[in-house]
C-alpha cells in the first residue's frame, strides 16, 4: 500500500476521520501497514512502548499475566486503536496484546509521532485531543468495572431482599 491508500484509510477510520486534511496527510506520511496472525503476541508486558496502532480489521485482546492466573481485560476491534501509552516517552507496556483473529492495522512509530506533535503544535493538539478521548473512555470503563456492577452485593431484579 502507498501513502495515498493510507490517506484514504485515515479519512474513514473513526480515530482520524475528523482530523483536518493536512493532519491526515501528515499521519499518512508516518503510517505503515502491519498484519498479525491469529494468536500472535503483538507485544509483551514490560516491552518498550514503541508503536501506536489503528486497527483496520480483526480483534486484539489486552491481557495481564499473574502467577497462576491469566486475564483478558479488554478486546478491541475494527476502527479502534491501541498502545496509546506509546505517546508517552520512555514507557513500558503494562499489558500483553494478542491477536485473537488475523489482524490488519496501521502502525506508527511513536517517536516519530511525538516529534511531529512537538514540531507542529496544531497537529499535536488535534492528535492528543483524540487520544485523550480514547483514554477518557477507557478510564470510564475501568471505573465502571471497579464498581463490580454484577457482583453479589448488587441487588438486581431477581435477588430479592433476603
Amino acid at each position: 500500500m502507498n501513502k495515498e491508500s493510507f490517506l484514504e484509510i485515515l479519512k474513514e477510520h473513526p480515530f482520524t476521520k475528523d482530523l483536518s486534511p493536512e493532519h491526515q496527510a501528515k499521519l499518512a506520511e508516518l503510517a505503515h501497514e502491519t498484519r498479525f496472525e491469529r494468536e500472535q503476541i503483538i507485544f509483551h508486558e514490560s516491552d518498550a512502548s514503541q508503536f501506536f496502532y489503528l486497527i483496520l480489521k480483526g480483534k486484539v485482546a489486552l491481557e495481564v499475566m499473574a502467577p497462576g492466573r491469566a486475564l483478558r481485560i479488554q478486546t478491541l476491534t475494527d476502527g479502534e486503536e491501541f498502545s496509546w501509552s506509546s505517546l508517552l516517552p520512555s514507557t513500558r507496556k503494562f499489558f500483553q496484546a494478542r491477536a485473537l483473529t488475523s489482524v490488519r492495522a496501521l502502525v506508527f512509530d511513536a517517536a516519530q509521532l511525538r516529534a511531529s506533535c512537538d514540531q507542529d503544535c496544531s497537529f499535536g493538539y488535534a492528535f492528543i485531543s483524540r487520544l485523550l478521548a480514547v483514554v477518557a473512555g477507557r478510564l470510564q470503563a475501568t471505573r465502571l468495572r471497579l464498581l463490580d456492577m454484577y457482583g453479589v452485593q448488587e441487588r438486581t431484579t431477581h435477588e430479592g431482599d433476603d
Partner: protein
Amino acid sequence: MKATTNAHCSTPPQALNSAALADPMMPSVARVVQVEKETHDTFTLSLAAHNGGTLPSFAPGQFSMLYAFGVGELPISISGDPEDSGKLVYTVRSVGQATHALVTRKPGDPVCLRGPFGTGWPMTEARGKDVLVVAGGIGLAPLRPAIYHILRHRGDYGRLMILYGARSPRDMLYRKQLSAWAYLPDTQILTTVDYGGLSWRGYVGVVTTLFRYVRLQPDRTVALICGPEIMMRYVVRELELRGMSSSETYLSMERNMKCGVGLCGHCQLGPHFICKDGPVFPLSRLQRWIGKYEL
C-alpha cells in the same frame, strides 16, 4: 387489581387463579418440576400447578412473589416463555437465605407464589419496530420472556438486537440459548464480560462498548433495558447520544418490593410504586428520579 392488567403488552390480561383474584396477598401453592443450574450461583426453577390447579398467565416483564416456607418471600421476575401455560419459570441468584432456600428446592417440593404483579415490557408498542435489548448480569432473566415473545411473533417486529454484559464468562446466563439465537435471521447477539480467561474468545469490556457494533435506527427502535441500576444509567446515556427518545426507552427497576400491589410503600421511587406502577417504566417517567441518592 392493577397487577393483573398490562397496558403495554399484547398478552391477554391475567387469568389469575381464584385465590389470587380474591386476595392478592393470599399465596397459592405450586410444585417445583425442574431446577436447572445456570451458573455457579444462579438457578432456573420451573413451577407447575399443584393438584391439578391452573397457573396464572403473565406478561413479559412481570414478577411474582415467591415464598420459601419458613424462610421468606421474594420478588422474582418471570423468565420463561409467556405462551407456555403449563409452567412458570424463574431464574434466581442465590445471595441470601431466602434465595438459597428457593434454589435448593427439589422437584416435587412446594413453593408458594403470589402474582404475577406489575407492568410488562411494551410488546404492543414495539410492533413494527426494531427491538434493542440491553441486559446486564441477571437482568437478562426478566427480558427473556420478551425475547421469547418476539421470536414467537417474528413477523410483528423488525431487527432484534441483544447486548448482554456479565461479570465473567462463568456468570453468563442462558449461554446455549444466546448462541442459538445468534443464528436466527434479523437477530444480532453481542455479549461481553468485564474480564475473561484466555479461553474466552468474545468481547471484554463494559456493555456500553457494544453499542459501536450495532446499527441503531433511533426513530424506529424500542429499547428494553434491565440490569444493575448504574449500568442502566450509562446505557441510557449511550442511547441518548445516539438519538433514542426517552419515551421509546424502557427500564425494569428494582426496589424493596414487599406487598406487590402498592400498599406497603416499601418500593416507592418518587411518586411511583415499583411493584404496581412498574417494574417496567418508560425512561420519560423516571428521568427525575433515577440516580437520586437514597431514592
